């Protein structure tokens, strides 16, 4: 059976589970022929799904719920990532220590394109305006890399524990030079990489079965990847067509990713879901979602996969 998976970002260890499942033949064992489409900075996986370019996508829950409110009926069918890897990394020399008091008047780098929701919620809980000015923060749309921090164009930038943070360290800054705030620790964590399909897909029992086999094989891939980070990194490298990734970087990323996977067998934990929704609903004047969504997740696939 054929299945197309659209990733949220470029080929890297963040998606090692799927590549490993494919390379190790886990999909094949389940009778699946999976095509993995890498993403990119301006690919909105939700749009690809809506256009019929993919059957399943890897997406973050805030973006998925926002799309749902836009009338695109996305449903979470599995949640391999238990915890969030997002954080704000600041230069120590800017004197930022406490988010409650020190952010005002500073410039912060944020990713947009659907990744800005957790940040906006957080600022809202802190009571900071994102429109600049004395009492608020100046927001920059951060580009692809960590340069704004190195160039001191921003006091803090968004980083992922598994990726950009390592890049900042690679660039020569030491942990002492930096102050980091994990979204998990700030109580504004939202669910990251999950698997989403269109509601209509779930109405087809054959599809549900296919997805169940897919999730099962993928989770097997994730387990394998977490257990064998170096081998997983190698598999990722083989799949990287740009030839730009390095073994060192991907192996480290895999180890960090493994930490995020801990505590999940692929099934969505309803408490996590609720926390995400609550965070997003508290978006202040311009909340990400205006009402608690209905039917935004479904256990049917994981139930069939693991029971």
């Amino acid at each position, binding site marked *: 059976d054929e299945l197309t998976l659209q990733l949220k970002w*470029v080929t890297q260890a963040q998606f090692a589970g799927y590549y490993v499942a494919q390379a190790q033949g886990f999909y094949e064992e389940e009778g699946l022929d999976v095509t993995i489409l*890498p993403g*990119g900075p*301006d*690919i909105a996986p939700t749009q690809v799904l809506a256009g019929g370019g993919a059957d399943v996508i890897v997406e973050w829950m805030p973006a998925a719920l926002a799309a749902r409110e836009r009338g695109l009926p996305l449903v979470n069918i599995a949640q391999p990532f238990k915890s969030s890897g997002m954080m704000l990394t600041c230069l120590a020399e800017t004197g930022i220590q406490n988010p409650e008091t020190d952010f005002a008047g500073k410039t912060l780098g944020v990713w947009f394109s659907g990744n800005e929701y957790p940040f906006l919620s957080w600022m809202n809980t802190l009571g900071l305006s994102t429109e600049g000015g004395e009492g608020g923060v100046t927001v920059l749309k951060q580009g692809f890399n960590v340069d704004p921090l190195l160039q001191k164009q921003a006091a803090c930038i968004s980083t992922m524990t598994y990726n950009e943070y390592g890049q900042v360290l690679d660039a020569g800054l030491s942990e002492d030079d930096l102050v980091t705030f994990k979204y998990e620790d700030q109580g504004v964590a939202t669910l990251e990489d999950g698997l989403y399909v269109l509601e209509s897909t779930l109405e087809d029992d054959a599809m549900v079965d296919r997805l169940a086999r897919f999730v099962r094989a993928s989770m097997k891939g994730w387990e394998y990847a977490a257990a064998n980070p170096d081998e997983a990194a190698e598999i990722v490298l083989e799949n990287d067509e*740009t030839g730009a990734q390095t073994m060192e970087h991907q192996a480290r990323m895999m180890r960090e990713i493994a930490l995020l996977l801990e505590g999940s067998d692929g099934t969505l934990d309803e408490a996590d879901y609720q926390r995400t929704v609550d965070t997003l609903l508290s978006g202040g004047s311009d909340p990400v979602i205006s009402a608690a969504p209905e039917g935004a997740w479904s256990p049917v696939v994981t139930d069939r996969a693991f029971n």
Partner: protein
Amino acid sequence: MTDAVLNAPQARRLRLHTGDLLPILTVLLVIVAVWYLGAIRMNAAWERDQAARAGVQLTTSELVSRTLTQDRPVLPAPHQVAQGLWEGVAGQAVTSRRSLVWHAWVTLSATLAGFGIGTALGIVLAVGIVHSRVMDLSVMPWAVASQTVPILAIAPMVIVVLASVGVTGLLPKAIIAAWLSFFPVLVGMVKGLRTPDGMQLDLMRSWSAPKTRVFWNLRLPSSLPYLFASLKVAIAAALVGTIVGELPAGATAGLGARLLSGSYYGQTVQIWSALFAAAILAAVLVALIGLIERTVLSRMGLAR
């Protein structure tokens, strides 16, 4: 009047003669020198910060040598870029994904396809515009508008939409390239096809030549200088279009993907190597068109 315009047998054409070597080398030398100075200046801030963090004092020569050997410089030094290029080109098997030749080839094929489509479209539209008032009045404003659509915004949508109807691979990129390259051809060709002056057209009229004849024997030949000038711009534009198409296409292969991943991981040397590879590619393509231009025009007695 027009034969006089083209009547400049003694005017020398820009061509690479041995005599050009000295000026080119001089200018190159100046550029490289400025580049080195710039690299030192722009990279120095970081080294000073690092030194301050480590609490050491840097001598000037230490500072200079460090600024020129950074792993992720703000501005890589020329020799770093040269090295990156060299490794990308000669250090790998051409089929390797780390080979710039391979990526350049991926980009080139889409560029040429897009350039072909764009040029054909531009010429066809220009011919229509010159011959039909309806087309002139209705197409031109919308052709202009089409160019103001931000392609980088449209590109992912084009790719998504095409993918959803099953078109993937080279064609989506080529379409974006064509989108960018048809416009210069259109503008230049419209101008060129309208260049013939009153007397030249009157001659044709006095022979009561049909429109096709006027086109083939008058408008087209007089438009060729304009066409070639436009083609040079168009092929560069097609390359830009392809690279833009490669950026959001999920960073698979091609120079655009190299640029993106370099940018994503802050590997400035890789960005610059890809950039130079693209520029070399463009320069070669432009030079190639220049060569064709010279052969064609000199065969037509129009070479200047």
